[in-house]
């Protein structure tokens, strides 16, 4: 019951007085209670445990670690590793465009 992965909110609605949402996990939709993330909006990501969203994913924080990792991949490249993956941070992806 504890292997929670982030899912994307595709729809919010109310049921029996509780805020609920449809959450997309790579194409599979699930109904989840959003009462603990009342500020949630469609398009945002939530972490769900046993039918309840317990956390709204903080995308800014996630970007921070991706940016730190961009530096890691730069270093890897200069160390002679081949990096095939796309840059992780949005910032770096924008730079590339």
């Amino acid at each position, binding site marked *: *019951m*504890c292997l929670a992965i982030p899912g*994307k909110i595709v729809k919010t609605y109310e049921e029996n007085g509780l805020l609920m949402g449809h959450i997309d996990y790579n194409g599979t939709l699930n109904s989840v209670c959003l009462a603990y993330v009342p500020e949630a909006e469609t398009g945002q990501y939530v972490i769900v445990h046993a039918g309840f969203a317990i956390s709204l994913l903080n995308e800014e924080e996630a970007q921070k670690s991706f940016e730190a990792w961009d530096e890691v991949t730069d270093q890897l490249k200069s160390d002679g590793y081949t990096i095939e*993956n796309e840059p992780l941070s949005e910032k770096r992806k924008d730079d590339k465009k």
Partner: protein
Amino acid sequence: MKYIDEYRNPEIIRKIIDRIKETVTQPWVIMEICGGQTHSIMRSGINELLKDQVELVHGPGCPVCVTPLELIDQALEIASRPEVIFTSFGDMLRVPGSEIDLQEARSRGADVRFVYSPLEAVKIARENPDKEVVFFAVGFETTAPGNAMAVRQAHREGLQNFSELVSHVLVPPAMEALLSSPANRVQAYLAAGHVCAVMGWEEYEPIAQKYKVPIVVTGFEPADLVQGILKTVQQLEKGQYTVENEYGRAVSRGGNIPARKIIDEVFKITDRKWRGIGSIPKSGFKIRKKYAAHDASLKFGVGHIEAQEPKICISGEILQGLKKPNICPAFGRECTPEHPLGATMVSSEGACSAYFRYHKRQL
């Protein structure tokens, strides 16, 4: 998938592992609390890659594994009553009680149903007013918000036929119990990210200070885990012991405030027995008096049922990080996920089952 693939990027993981190797001057013993983390570590082979730098010992953070035997027996007793629809998360169905498990009870005619949210159990109660619907409310701080909400919802709707058999456990008191044991070997903790998503990490600060252990809030993907290990060994090498958050995308210092509020409204802290470990003071939740009508233990009067753990199973020592599953003489022989003798083999989050799946070569 976004926010998952990034944390499984092998190059990133390799680089962080290199950094850990550069940092470590002596081997350290680090415990990952959560069974989900144990699984991720075993699946990705992080324990093998870092075996000369850190010994990862697997903590008691598997709710199925630590639910005491007598609670399973109490669940079986309630489920056997003709007026009852007994509902549970799927992973509790095969946990052996003293004699049978819930799945066996079902095949003998009990109405046992698997739900994936406690709100589904409330729905069953709404649709079956002539039945008593009982939900087996187990778990750590991660499932407490949902289980508390189900009680509150049933109360609000006046569903007198909904109750919960509660066996909730809490992580920080278990961490303290392990650290204060004379047999303790743990030098640092990777705290369970999702427990902290609910509760925040303030509770960990006095533990880090008192026992001088670094505690790093860590996520579940391989990159999260190696990053958590890196932060932990950096502290260990410098002789520091603070709480750090390496899971900022899901966890804030105060946790989930609305969830903590409802938990506190419905549940109250109590002493709890942990399977294989024994009683730990103030280590769990029970239902408050205000909601006593929804407390299945009171409603069905099963609180007196007690049970003795089977002697051969060493899961208690495994849950305390004292022994590894492959030391157990029954491991992979009499005891397999198909025929589990102990809860750590039943649950997909249990250390024995993680070893069995990913570590057969050590048999």
